[in-house]
C-alpha cells in the first residue's frame, strides 16, 4: 500500500525567515509597522524572562511545578496578539505568553503553580479561561463556548471568536477529535491552535500521528493550516485570518504551529533521556526572538538603546515576579472546604466543624484555623 493518503509535506506559512528577512505572503497580509514589531519583540523577551524566573523559583522550592514555554514564545504571542478583546481563549497549562497578552498578572499565574489558589484570575475579566491540566479537555469546552456565542447571535464582523490552545500530544485524545467533529458539524466559531512542539513528554510526533496534524481538519470538513510557530508575524497573520473567519460565521480552523519545546515538558521531566542535543541545536537556530531581533536590526527599526531598554525591563520583571511570588501568603487548612460546592452542603459543614475541632485540639493551635 502506498502512502498516497498522506499528502506531501507542505511548506510552512512563513513571513519571517530564521535570518530575519520579511517575506510577504499573498494569502496572509501583514504590515510590519515599527511600533507593533517593537511591541512584539518586547512581549517575546518579557515572557521568556518570566518563564525563566518561574523555572528558577520552582528549583528553589517556591513553586510546586512549572511548565516552561521556552521556544514557543512566538506561537503564543503571535496568536494571542491576533485576538480582539471580546474573543475568548481556552488554554492548556503552558500558555503563559497568551496569559501575558490577555493581561493576567504574572503573580496570579504563579500563585496557581505555587498552590496558594486554585483559580488565580477572573476568566471573564481577561477573556482568558483558567488553565486545564487534563490533556485536551479544553478543546471541547471551547467548542461549547463557541456554540454559546452562536446561540447568542454574537457573530459578524465585530463578533466574538473563540480560540483554544493544545499540544501535539492532545491530538491523540478522543476529546480533541470529538471537538473537531462537533465544531465542524455546528460550524462553531472556534480556532483550534495546536502548538506542535514535537514532543509529548518523551513521545516524538511521528509516534503520535501518521498524517501531519493540520491535515486532520480536512477529514472533519474544515480548513487546516501549518504555520511556522517560531515566526511571530506568521502566527499573528494566520490566526487573525482564522479568527475573522470564525467571527463572521464561517466556522472553525485548525492551525498547527510548528515549533519546538526547548525546555523540559515540566520541571518534573528530564528531556536528556529521550532527545539529542543536535536536535535542540537545530531548533536553536530557528529561535523566535533572535529572528525578530535580526529583522529589527536589518530594517533599522531598533537600535541598541531599544534592545538594552527591553533587557533592563525584563530584569526588573524577573525581580518583581520573584518578590511577589515569595510574598504570596499560604492558605489556611480549613480553606479546603471552601470551594467544593457553590451552595451550602450540610455534610461538608459537619466535616468542616469536625476538622476545626481537631485542629484546635493541638497545643498552641489558636489562630491556626480560620
Amino acid at each position, binding site marked *: 500500500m502506498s502512502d498516497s493518503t498522506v499528502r506531501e509535506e507542505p511548506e510552512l506559512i512563513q513571513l519571517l525567515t530564521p535570518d530575519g528577512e520579511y517575506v510577504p505572503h499573498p494569502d496572509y497580509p501583514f504590515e510590519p509597522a515599527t511600533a507593533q514589531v517593537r511591541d512584539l519583540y518586547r512581549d517575546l523577551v518579557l515572557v521568556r524572562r518570566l518563564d525563566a524566573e518561574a523555572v528558577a523559583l520552582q528549583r528553589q522550592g517556591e513553586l*510546586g511545578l512549572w511548565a516552561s514555554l521556552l521556544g514557543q514564545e512566538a506561537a503564543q504571542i503571535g496568536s494571542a496578539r491576533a485576538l480582539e478583546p471580546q474573543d475568548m481563549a481556552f488554554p492548556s497549562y503552558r500558555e503563559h505568553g497568551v496569559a501575558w497578552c490577555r493581561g493576567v498578572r504574572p503573580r496570579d499565574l504563579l500563585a496557581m503553580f505555587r498552590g496558594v489558589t486554585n483559580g488565580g484570575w477572573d476568566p471573564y475579566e481577561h477573556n482568558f479561561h483558567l488553565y486545564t491540566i487534563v490533556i485536551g479537555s479544553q478543546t471541547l469546552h471551547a467548542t461549547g463556548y463557541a456554540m454559546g456565542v452562536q446561540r447568542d447571535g454574537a457573530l459578524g464582523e465585530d463578533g466574538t471568536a473563540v480560540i483554544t490552545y493544545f499540544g501535539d500530544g492532545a491530538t491523540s485524545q478522543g476529546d480533541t477529535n470529538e471537538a473537531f467533529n462537533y465544531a465542524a458539524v455546528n460550524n462553531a466559531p472556534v480556532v483550534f491552535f495546536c502548538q506542535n512542539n514535537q514532543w509529548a513528554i518523551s513521545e516524538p510526533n511521528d509516534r503520535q500521528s501518521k498524517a501531519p496534524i493540520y491535515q486532520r481538519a480536512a477529514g472533519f470538513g474544515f480548513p487546516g493550516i501549518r504555520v511556522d510557530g517560531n515566526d511571530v508575524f506568521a502566527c499573528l497573520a494566520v490566526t487573525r485570518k482564522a479568527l475573522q473567519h470564525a467571527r463572521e460565521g464561517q466556522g472553525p480552523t485548525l492551525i498547527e504551529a510548528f515549533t519546538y519545546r526547548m525546555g523540559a515538558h515540566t520541571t518534573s521531566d528530564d528531556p536528556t533521556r529521550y532527545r539529542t542535543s543536535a536536535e535542540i541545536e537545530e531548533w536553536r537556530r530557528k529561535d523566535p526572538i533572535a529572528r525578530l531581533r535580526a529583522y529589527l536590526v536589518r530594517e533599522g527599526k531598533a537600535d541598541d538603546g531599544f534592545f538594552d531598554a527591553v533587557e533592563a525591563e525584563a530584569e526588573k520583571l524577573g525581580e518583581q515576579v520573584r518578590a511577589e511570588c515569595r510574598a504570596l501568603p499560604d*492558605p489556611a487548612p480549613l480553606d479546603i472546604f471552601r470551594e467544593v460546592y457553590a451552595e451550602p452542603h450540610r455534610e461538608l459543614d459537619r466535616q468542616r466543624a469536625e476538622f476545626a475541632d481537631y485542629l484546635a485540639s493541638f497545643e498552641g493551635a489558636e489562630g491556626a484555623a480560620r
Partner: protein
Amino acid sequence: MPVITYRQALRDTLRAEMHRDENVFLMGEEIGVFEGSYKITEGLLKEFGERRVRDTPIAEEGFVGAAVGAAMLGLRPVVEIMTINFSLLALDQIVNHAAKIYGMFGGQNSVPMVIRTPGGGGQQLGATHSQNVELYYAFVPGLKVVAPSTPADAAALLRAAIRDDDPVLFLENLGLYNTKGEVPDEEVVGEIGRAAVVREGTDITLVGYSRMAMIATQVADRLAEEGISVEVVDLRSLRPLDRETIVNSVKKTGCAVVAEDDWLTYGIGAEIAASIQEGAFDYLDAPVRRVAMAEVPLPYAKPLENAALPSAESVTTVIYETLRAVGRRVG
C-alpha cells in the same frame, strides 16, 4: 530474604513474567524510552524490545481498548495507566468491555489483562491527579481489584494478576513505591481475594489497604508502646472482598476502625463497615468508625493537602475515641 522497594518488586515481577510467558507484553504512556513516569518499567524496553514494551500516544481509551482486543485473542497485556486518574478516560473500555465481555459473549472469550495504575495523593499533583477512585472498579462485577501494600504482596499479587484469566485492576500508590520490605527469592503466586492479618492484636481491629495498610501497621506499632493491642487487617484485594477475615478479626476484638485514602461517603470503608455489622453485629461493643480523606478535591498546596489526607495521627485519634467508647482509658 532480600529487602527491596515496592518499585523494584513490581519491576522484577514484570520482568520474570515476561521471561516466563511470551504472551505477556506491556503497553502504556511513557513506559518505553522514558522507562515509566514512576520508573517501574526501567530497563524493560532495552531487554525485551518494542514488540513487548509498547509506548502509546496519549489516548487511554485507545490503548486500554486495544489491550482488551489483544487479551480476547489470548495475549496477556499488562497496561500501565500513568495514574488512576487517567483511567477515567478509559472507563467505558474497562467497565463496559473488559468486565463484561466474558459474560456477554457467553463465556467464549475471557479478557486476561492487567491494568497497573497508581492512586494516591500527597505528592502535590493537584485535584485531578491525586485521586483514589479504585471504588469505581471495585464496584463492578467482572473485574478484580487488588491493592497490595508491601513489596512482597506487590510481587505475589502482580504474578497472580498476570496469570489470572480475568481482567485485574492492580492498584499501586505513589506513596508506596519507595517503601522497602522483604521479598522471598522463590516465586510466590498470591491469592486474589484473600486479606491478611498482618499484625495480631486483641483490643481493636484496624482495617486498611494500599497506603493506609502501611499507615495502619505504623499506628499499631506505636500504640503497642502504650499497651494497646491493635490487630491490623490488610485487605489486599478489594474485589473479591475477603469478608471472612475481617469479620473473624472483629469477633475477636469487638471493635473496628477502617482507614481509607478515598472519600468517606460511599467509600470502601462504608462497605467494610456494612460487612462487619452483617457478620459480627453481636460481637460489636462500639460503632465501626471510618477515617478517610476530607470530602474535597485534593488541594495542591502542601499544607492544605496534608490537612485533607488521613494520617497516622487522625487514625490514632479515632482509635482512642473508639476504645474510650468501650470503656478503655487511653490517649
